């Protein structure tokens, strides 16, 4: 088709410079689509007036309540007609990606073809929650596009007060730090909450995120209601050839300044081989014939730093699993909240282990659904009712690893102290 391009002096400036330009992409699409000609018209207007012109509404696909973000233009002329009529509707379909965002070119091309056919041809890889965002579609075409995507084996993501699309890191597929099977945990958990994703009925959004180790490449601690972050219980593993190789390359100063002195708990020390300390909680590895590293694993807080610097020479232990943190969110209304530990460690090796993870998620989600106020996130809820009330609600035992320090105020009713102590000691003896 052949609608003339609008003048876009502002956008044009964003074609200069070395970084790939989305404007060049928009123009290319506009060549064949009046839809995009007008989209650029509205966007250029926003750049001029510094105002946004989209409003929401309700558009969904048959059988689902969420997953589509409807956009209708508010940029109207005196008569109340859209100034850019072709682009009056610009909805987005949120499609859940494969864990770790792996693709082959074949599937990507299929997405392109479908979106060229029914949509604007503009795709975001990916949204900040991880969705493949098929951006720009008329109300009429939403269902059609969806029908073809769905049969590719992909499903709509979350929007509104629902469980949201999730993300997992590269992890076991391509990372030596991985402490559990992230893609599988991600898939199993999310696919057990599809009803909560597709039919928004929660007090507010709920996000799962999966990082394979404490480096937390998915920002899970800060950006998810339930963060599954890999860690390990036993001693750091060592590899002497790689340690010697690293030391030969980097030398003593880097070892001391970049590794030893940056350990947050001084758990890692430089020792002469002759005064090495033994013990079942100690990891050691030789750097050359005189010096070695000694790690007191009981002081190690699994921060990852030394392992990051000396990748391979040092590695997470063998007894791997994940810590669960609850309550992370961004800033709206209360200010940012980080997730905090509710399960210091759980195994995630087997299907049974992952089943337990799903059950935990279910319990937490049910508690959230029953106890959160409207538009209240898990972190806000926990802040309101207190962590202990939350733990009791979901049936988890308290653990000192859940706190950075015990209370500094006396404002607690504690006439149950003796019974609590008795209970805990009884449990200890059983497990002992």
């Amino acid at each position, binding site marked *: 088709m052949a609608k003339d391009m609008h003048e876009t002096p502002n956008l044009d400036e*964003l074609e200069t410079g070395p970084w790939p330009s989305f*404007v060049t992409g928009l123009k290319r699409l506009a060549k064949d689509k009046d839809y995009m000609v007008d989209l650029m018209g509205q966007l250029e207007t926003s750049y001029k007036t510094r105002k946004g012109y989209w409003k929401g509404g309700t558009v969904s696909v048959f059988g*689902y309540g969420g997953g589509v973000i409807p956009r209708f233009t508010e940029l109207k002329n005196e008569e109340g007609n859209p100034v850019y009529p072709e682009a009056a509707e610009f909805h987005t379909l949120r499609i859940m990606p494969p864990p770790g965002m792996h693709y082959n070119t074949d599937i990507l091309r299929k997405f392109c073809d479908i979106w060229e056919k029914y949509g604007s041809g503009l795709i975001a890889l990916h949204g900040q929650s991880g969705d493949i965002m098929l951006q720009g579609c008329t109300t009429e075409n939403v269902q059609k596009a969806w029908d073809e995507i769905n049969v590719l084996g992909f499903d709509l993501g979350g929007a509104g007060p629902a469980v949201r699309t999730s993300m997992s890191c590269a992890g076991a597929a391509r990372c030596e730090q991985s402490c559990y099977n992230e893609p599988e945990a991600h898939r199993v958990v999310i696919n057990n909450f599809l009803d909560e994703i597709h039919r928004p009925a929660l007090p507010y959004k709920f996000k799962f995120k999966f990082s394979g180790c404490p480096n937390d490449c998915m920002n899970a601690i800060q950006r998810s209601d339930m963060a599954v972050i890999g860690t390990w219980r036993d001693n750091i593993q060592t590899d002497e050839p790689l340690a010697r190789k690293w030391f030969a390359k980097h030398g003593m100063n880097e070892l001391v300044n970049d590794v030893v002195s940056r350990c947050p708990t001084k758990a890692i020390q430089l020792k002469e081989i002759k005064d090495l300390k033994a013990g079942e909680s100690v990891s050691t590895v030789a750097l050359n014939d005189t010096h070695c590293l000694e790690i007191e694993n009981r002081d190690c807080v699994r921060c990852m730093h030394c392992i990051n610097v000396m990748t391979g020479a040092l590695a997470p232990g063998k007894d791997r699993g994940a810590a669960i943190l609850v309550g992370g969110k961004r*800033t709206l209304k209360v200010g940012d909240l980080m997730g905090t530990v509710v399960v210091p460690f759980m195994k995630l090796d087997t299907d049974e282990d992952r089943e337990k993870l799903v059950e935990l998620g279910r319990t937490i989600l049910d508690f959230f659904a029953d106890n959160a106020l409207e538009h209240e996130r898990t972190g806000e809820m926990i802040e309101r009712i207190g962590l202990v009330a939350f733990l009791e609600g979901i049936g988890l035992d308290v653990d000192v690893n859940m706190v950075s320090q015990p209370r500094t105020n006396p404002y607690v009713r504690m006439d149950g102290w003796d019974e609590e102590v008795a209970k805990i000691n009884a449990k200890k003896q059983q497990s002992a």
Partner: protein
Amino acid sequence: MSQAQAAATPRRPIECGVPDAKEYMHPTLIKNFGNWKYHDRPRPGVLHHVSRTGEEVWTVRAGTQRQMDVYTIRKLCDIGDQFADGHVRFTIRSNIEYIVADEKKVAPLIEALEKAGFPVGGTGNSVTMVAHTQGWLHCDIPGTDASGVVKSMMDCLYEEFKNEEMPNRVHISTSCCEINCGGQADIAVIIQHTKPPVINHDLVANVCERPAVVARCPVAAIRPALVNGKPSLEVDEKKCVCCGACFPPCPPMQINDPENSKLAIWVGGKNSNARSKPTFMKMVAAGLPNNAPRWPEVNEVVGRILHTYKTDARPWERMADWIERIGWPRFFEKTGLTFTKYLIDDWRGARANLNASTHIRF
């Protein structure tokens, strides 16, 4: 009830959920799944992972604009088919990664990508791609654009993306409203409104669920009121902190303003647990104009902070670690930014951010 649903013979969705990643993973990744031993970086933009079996993969990472037209995606696919076994993945920061099992494929792949205009880099201690949000292009509440902000920033940071010359990895985010979908980062650029919402009282009654809107205000500045006869909402402008939280649930409470919706800069957010515990970012500059299409004032400040960090921080210090060591007085001194009263916390728990000690720097 939308037309979409009314349309034709409705098809029940197949609730298939998330596909199995192994359908799409590079075969060498599947073979060595969970068995990687270590990695190094032969050059910026390239990761070299070695498996316990001795097998190796090279990952070539390249930057994209995230908001991609199908032609760009197909171009990336062509490169993947020609040079990289037809497999790709994307990072959380919209970088594309090609994984190859043969070292010989790395150089030609890089050449092809650069020729096609996709910078190779973003690994290790580089400045990687900015976490990108929606803005004017698609969101219903933005104070600015996202794609344009990111593009103009990455143009400035292009060399830093392609090289690994920072003390540690640098993660930047932008956000086109105070909600900040972009999240915590070493440096964040976020809209900061400076005037209370301008209310279109004619529309409130029809468009807004008034109790819900009242409940959204963090400082309880909104109260129901009758305005020229119509039920509407009133804002106590003394109390209002101009956060914009009332705008999404009530569009007639227009918070965006071409002049008064400014940009603020935050530093020191850290999500990783490496060394120190994760930290929130802190506001260090504000009042920057929303100067589309290239936001030069914002990029000047971001550049200045990055430059200071680059020259002053020690290896492996993230932005937060560096500031923790030199202290906030030095941070403001070295960056030439001005510490004003607005940067002193007065929100709940504010006392934790005051100096309850005589640890003072002169």
